[in-house]
């Protein structure tokens, strides 16, 4: 397992994937964070409450919704990219234990997801603090809450990246896997969450967004109204369980398939 882990971390360190996806996550977070901060308190459209309020500051800190999705896509690229680039052949020649390779990839993806989440959380926090300070507002949230949302982004990004790695193994076609993950996050969860609210709280992207500070009816993308937030540890547990379940499903099915 050590050599598989070493190889997977080295793979990430010797390409630009993590930097590119982190850049994308930071850019999306900055775009949403700045738009939210600029329009905060105006009461127009989907504007968040004033940054002088706890709700407004929390919403702005949680501008990491799309970054969470990018973290999942990073995980997808870690695994399905091996098939797109046909590097899976050498990977399995060097490490024939495919379950071990998948586990190593999930761990490496989680670490990369944590890096991405850290960058996204720092961006969102910096923007929220900057705009609040520029308007002369004191911080409307206690420090531990702010840290909890930032930490939630980091942990949720790591777990979504691990789940994405499983999804990328389950659906080897990278474009197909990417579309599936995006459609899941932006369509399926919103529809299911809005119609069956009791189930919505257990859906992975919703759980992740709630860990990052999103609330019932808030966030970008928006958490469906009526979805009651899971407690923080339970949300993390749900995400971890989903990541493991997807990886196990992949290990029992597609990972065993022939490598052409």
């Amino acid at each position, binding site marked *: 397992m*050590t*050599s*598989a882990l*070493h*190889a997977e971390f*080295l*793979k990430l360190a*010797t*390409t*630009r*994937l993590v930097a590119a996806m982190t850049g994308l996550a930071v850019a999306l977070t900055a775009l949403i964070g700045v738009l939210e901060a600029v329009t905060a308190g105006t009461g127009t459209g989907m504007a968040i409450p004033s940054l002088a309020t706890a709700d407004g500051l929390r919403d702005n800190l949680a501008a990491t919704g799309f970054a969470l999705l990018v973290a999942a896509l990073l995980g997808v690229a870690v695994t399905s990219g091996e098939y797109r*680039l*046909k*590097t*899976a*052949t*050498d*990977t*399995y*020649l*060097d*490490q*024939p*234990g495919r379950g071990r390779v998948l586990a190593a990839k999930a761990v490496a993806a989680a670490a990369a997801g944590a890096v991405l989440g850290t960058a996204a959380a720092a961006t969102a926090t910096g923007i929220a603090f900057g705009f609040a300070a520029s308007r002369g507002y004191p911080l409307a949230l206690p420090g531990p809450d702010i840290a909890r949302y930032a930490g939630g982004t980091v942990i949720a990004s790591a777990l979504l990246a691990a789940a994405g790695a499983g999804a990328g193994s389950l659906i080897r076609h990278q474009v197909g896997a990417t579309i599936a993950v995006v459609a899941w996050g932006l369509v399926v969860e919103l529809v299911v969450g809005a119609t069956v609210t009791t189930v919505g709280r257990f859906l992975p992207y919703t759980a992740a967004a709630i860990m990052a500070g999103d609330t019932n009816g808030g966030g970008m993308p928006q958490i469906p109204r009526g979805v009651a937030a899971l407690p923080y540890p339970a949300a993390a547990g749900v995400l971890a369980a989903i990541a493991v379940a997807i990886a196990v499903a992949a290990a029992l099915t597609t990972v*065993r398939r*022939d*490598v*052409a």
Partner: protein
Amino acid sequence: MTVIEVRGLVKRFGPATAVDDLSFSVGAGTVTGFLGPNGAGKTTTLRMLLGLVRPTSGQALIWGRPYRELGDRRKRVGAALETSGIHPGRTVAGHLRVRCAARGAGRSRIGAVLEETGMSELAGRRAGGLSLGERQRLGLAGALLGDPEVMILDEPANGLDPAGVLWLRGFLRRLGDQGRTVLVSSHILAEVAQFADRAVVLDRGRLVSAGPVAELVKAARRAVTVRSPRAEALRSALTAEGATVRTAGPGRLEIDGLDAEQVATLAAALGIPIFEMTTDAGSLEQAFLRLTATEGRPG
């Protein structure tokens, strides 16, 4: 000692049978050409041997075990497969570092394998900027990382220019001289004939021949061809001696069943002048075409 053993190997993809009851073995220290037309099942067989493709039935073993079960000894097997990809954003040296890490091996041989494959000057270049031939060399460099006793190579000559093919010939000869066991599939039969001790020939997933290259070539030896102004008289005499004679052009005969000396002696005895006589020495290419009956068949 048998190093590679394939026993009753079958692989079906849906209704199509890619490999059909294939059995052959490769002895230690031999260089074996693995030949067959496109779609013969060579790559599928090599992938089964390396644990990448699951056989429908039968076994493909190295040192008596499936590749996945070789444990640490797996490090002594090097393979470069035709369809292996290299991450375009990774440098040549980075690619080899990743492979060392995955194999649980040190990086000490990276310099040596880059040197051996003529890639030292490209160590810092990203793989996306390499030519097909350079990518082939990098694949071979990766296969050499473990200083392998056994090498399995799939179409290593693909994408190489003439100079590259010449280099590959020397490279494979060196591997043989070093006592490594090499199984190499290739379309370039003239090259295989120059470095391989043995050949395994497949067609439509089935074994059609296996043995020393020299014997295959000998079996493929074709006719003695003569040109004579009295070709018909010579034909009658040769036929009477039991030879098979075909017309190969105006005044030209192609003779099977007698060698050049016998033909010349008979012609001299009958006073039949011969203006030209050639003996086809045979080639692995001819042997291959005869065995697989692919002459005129689209590739």
